[in-house]
Every structure is written in structure tokens, then in C-alpha cells.
């Protein structure tokens, strides 16, 4: 889609602003996708995707002032409950943004052939089951919208792990996630969760520049320089969150955006509002029962009531099998154990976290933290005694 925007910038001044700019953009995008598909060797998947788009977007629709809705309708179809949850975001990437299966697979860590198969199955399902291309009625809208938002968030989240956005050639998923978020927010401005998601993504995006040093080293949130954060993006995010809260319908994305807002308060006050963050995570936990939320909440509790309280909150999650291979769980445990003074356990937890992390700069950071714990432990031992005696 970004190519189409670039084309628009080049051609508008010459021929004047088109009567329906969105329609013009969509036509250009469709033409470019068709051209790109022809150029690609394995055009099967994209051809099929384009067939869906082509079927549903008749030329007559170009005259329709609701053209941007076509993309929204496509997204609602992709996020339909009958479509397997794991393939909704990939399907949107393919059909709305023209990604190929290989790029999508890489993003979601799935083999390209596997991803291609899942996408074909999903599109067959849409055709065979007769899944409609429409924005659901008011009654269903909030629930169905959640599936769309979840898919967009998944796309943004996959782009999150490329903090430097280093490969321009490989499309930046974070940008695409935000683009989709803007689309939905502009088309459904009365939906507070749509605004909340966009706000959340913009807050996160605002900190992109601060996440790595110039040498590519990992910088945790607490150590980021607020001056390196993108102020206009934060302002936009805050405005969106305010608008969302006007609707009076709280939801998980608004809550998560509010957490982000509490974090970025630091740029004005110099401190993070951990009390607010803990209360927000309390609310999020009651909404989602997500172990990820529980971990973040435990970290907040450690700030408001001390490391032991935070560790107790983490301990409550010990039995959850999903966390056994979840790096942030072990990293949080390690941090809190270290703060509680249980250094051998902290070391072991750091070891677990390191072994589960795929980003070298984060691994490096965790290794430094662990080394620090080891050094601290050895300096605390009375001279002459062995470590095992502790």
C-alpha cells in the first residue's frame, strides 16, 4: 500500500486531486498488486488473493464514496469467526496488503510452504462457507471488531521485534500494523477500541528510536531517554485515548494504551506512575485473564509494594505450562529474585531467559544482568567459604 501512496504523491500535483482520493488510491494499489503478482514467480497465492479482491471490488465500486470500506469489509471477512484465529492476521497481510507467503511466514516464524497452505485453506473456506464481505451490524460489531483489532495488533507485534527497522526491502510490519489501525480508526471513529488500539500502537512506535543504542544494544524501557521518544506521535496517541474514553466503553486496548500513557508521563514528571499502572493491569487482568498481563502486573506490584510482593504475584503463575518457554516470564522472575536477594535463583532464572531469547541484543543484555548477579553473589560471600555452602 505504501507504494500506492508514493505514486499518489508523484502524480497528484500534475493532474490535480482526484474527485475521490481513496478510490483513486485503491485503484492504483490494485493495479500495482496485479503488476507485482505478474512479476513474481510463484504468484499462486497472490493471484488467488487478488481474485478475492477482484471479485468483491467491481469497477463500479470506484464511484462509490464508501470505497475505503471495501478494505474494511475484506478485513472483517478475514477475521470472521469461521476462520482459524492463527491465520487471520496472515490473511489480512496477504489480501489487504499484498504480502507473499514467504514474507508472512518469516514474520510469524512459520515455514513458507506451511503458511501458503494455511492461507489457501482459509481462502477456500471463505469461498465455500460463503463468508460475507461486510461490516457486521451494530449488535455483532464490537465482538467481530475485536477479532480484526487482534489481527492488526498481531501484525504490529511481529514488527515490534525489528526495533531498528533495518531492512527496508523487507516490509516493516509495524508500519503496516499502524496503517491498518489508522484505516479502521478512520472508518469506525465511534468505536473506542479501534481508537484505543491505534493509540497503543502509536505510543509503542514513539519509543522505537530509544529501544536500541547506536551500537544496536538493547535499552529497557526504564532506561530509555524520554527525549529520544517521538513527541508528536505521543501527542497523537494521547488525543486518541482521550477521544476513546469519551465513548465511555472501556476495553483492553484502551487499558493497554493507558498503561503506555502512564509510562510516558516520565517525559514530563521524571517518574513513572506505577500506581496507575498497577490499577490498569488489575482491570486488564479481570478482562483478559492473560498470563502476559499477569506478568506485567507483577512487575508493577514490585514497584508499588516491593520486590517480594511482585515475586509473590509471579509465583501465582508458576503452574501455567505456557510460561515455561516464555522468555519475559523468566526475565521478570530473574529481576525480582535478584532484588529480593535470592541470587542463585536469579542466576538460574536469567539462564532460562537467555536460552529462550532469539534476539541477540536482548540475550546480551540478559547475560550482562546475570553476570552482575554472579559478581554480586561472589562479593557477598564471606572469604574462604565455597559457594555451595550458601
Amino acid at each position, binding site marked *: 500500500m505504501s507504494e500506492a501512496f508514493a505514486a499518489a504523491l508523484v502524480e497528484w500535483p500534475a493532474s490535480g486531486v482526484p474527485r475521490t482520493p481513496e478510490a483513486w488510491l485503491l485503484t492504483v494499489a490494485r493495479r500495482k498488486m496485479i503488476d507485482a503478482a505478474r512479476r513474481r514467480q510463484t504468484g499462486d497465492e497472490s493471484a488467488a488473493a487478488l481474485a478475492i479482491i477482484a471479485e468483491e471490488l467491481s469497477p463500479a465500486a470506484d464511484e462509490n464514496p464508501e470505497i475505503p470500506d471495501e478494505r474494511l469489509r475484506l478485513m472483517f471477512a478475514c477475521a470472521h469467526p469461521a476462520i482459524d484465529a492463527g491465520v487471520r492476521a496472515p490473511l489480512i497481510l496477504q489480501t489487504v496488503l499484498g504480502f507473499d507467503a514467504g514474507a508472512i511466514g518469516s514474520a510469524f516464524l512459520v515455514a513458507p510452504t506451511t503458511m501458503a497452505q494455511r492461507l489457501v485453506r482459509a481462502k477456500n473456506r471463505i469461498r465455500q462457507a460463503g463468508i460475507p464481505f461486510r461490516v457486521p451490524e451494530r449488535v455483532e460489531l464490537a465482538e467481530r471488531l475485536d477479532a480484526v483489532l487482534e489481527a492488526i495488533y498481531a501484525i504490529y507485534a511481529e514488527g515490534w521485534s525489528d526495533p531498528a527497522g533495518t531492512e527496508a526491502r523487507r516490509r516493516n510490519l509495524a508500519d503496516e500494523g499502524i496503517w491498518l489501525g489508522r484505516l479502521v480508526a478512520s472508518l469506525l471513529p465511534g468505536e473506542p477500541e479501534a481508537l484505543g488500539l491505534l493509540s497503543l500502537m502509536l505510543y509503542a512506535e514513539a519509543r522505537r528510536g530509544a529501544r536500541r543504542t547506536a551500537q544496536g544494544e538493547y535499552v529497557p524501557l526504564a532506561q530509555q531517554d524520554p527525549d529520544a521518544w517521538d513527541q508528536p506521535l505521543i501527542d497523537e496517541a494521547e488525543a486518541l485515548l482521550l477521544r476513546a474514553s469519551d465513548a465511555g466503553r472501556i476495553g483492553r486496548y484502551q487499558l493497554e494504551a493507558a498503561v503506555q500513557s502512564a509510562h510516558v508521563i516520565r517525559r514530563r514528571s521524571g517518574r513513572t506512575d506505577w500506581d496507575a499502572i498497577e490499577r490498569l493491569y488489575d482491570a486488564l487482568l479481570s478482562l483478559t485473564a492473560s498470563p502476559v498481563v499477569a506478568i506485567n502486573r507483577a512487575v508493577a506490584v514490585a514497584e508499588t509494594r516491593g520486590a517480594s510482593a511482585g515475586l509473590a504475584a509471579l509465583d501465582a503463575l508458576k503452574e501455567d505450562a505456557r510460561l515455561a518457554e516464555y522468555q519475559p516470564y523468566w526475565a521478570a522472575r530473574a529481576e525480582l529474585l535478584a532484588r529480593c536477594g535470592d541470587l542463585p535463583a536469579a542466576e538460574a532464572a536469567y539462564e*532460562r531467559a537467555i*536460552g529462550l531469547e532469539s534476539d541477540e541484543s536482548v540475550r*546480551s543484555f540478559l547475560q550482562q544482568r546475570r553476570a552482575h548477579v554472579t559478581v554480586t553473589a561472589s562479593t557477598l560471600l564471606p572469604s574462604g567459604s565455597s559457594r555451595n555452602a550458601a
Partner: protein
Amino acid sequence: MRYLLLMYQQEAVMRNLPKETAREVHGAYMAYLDALKKAGVLVANHGLQPTSAAATVRAPNGKAVVLNGPFAETKEQLAGYFLIDVPDLDSALSWAERNPTASHGAVEVRPVWG
């Protein structure tokens, strides 16, 4: 299902790492190995000595021909493997992604028969 994770990296680069980096890389592998064991998925693993220690044998007519060196010259060389037992390819790929070799080389994931 069993999958073989084959680790390919540039021997020359790994051999010439500064001491601090080499220590960190070694630590990363130890942590990874530990994580595989704790997850209960590790079946076997070995690190290979470099291709300078390799030899190849062909015996097309029952007569063995031995040559020094690896099977093929490649930009990155096979450094070792992990054999893991996991539910499916997605799971194998997430372990491959965590393998430190993935960050400075490539990890090939191949399903194993039986």
C-alpha cells in the same frame, strides 16, 4: 516428532571472535542447551570440530578413496546439531530461532524418519 537442527556458521569468524564476545556466545549456547533440557525436548546434541579436521570417503567400486576436507565448500560450515523431540514444525522453528547460530549463521530444520 523428531527434528534435526543443523547449525551453519562461518568457522573463521567464530574462531576469531574477541575473548569477551566468545565468552558471551559460549554462555548463550549453554543457556540454550539448558532451556532445551528443561523443556524436555532435547534428544541429543554434538558440536563438530572444524572442517580442517574433516575427511571424506567415497567407495564407488568397493575401493575407498579418502580425501581431506569436508563434503563441500560452503560459505558457512556445519558446526554441530541438536536433535529435538517436539509436537510439530512450528515448535521446532521456534527452537531454531532461539539457537544462537541463527543470529550469526543459519539453522536448518529437518524432520527425521521414525
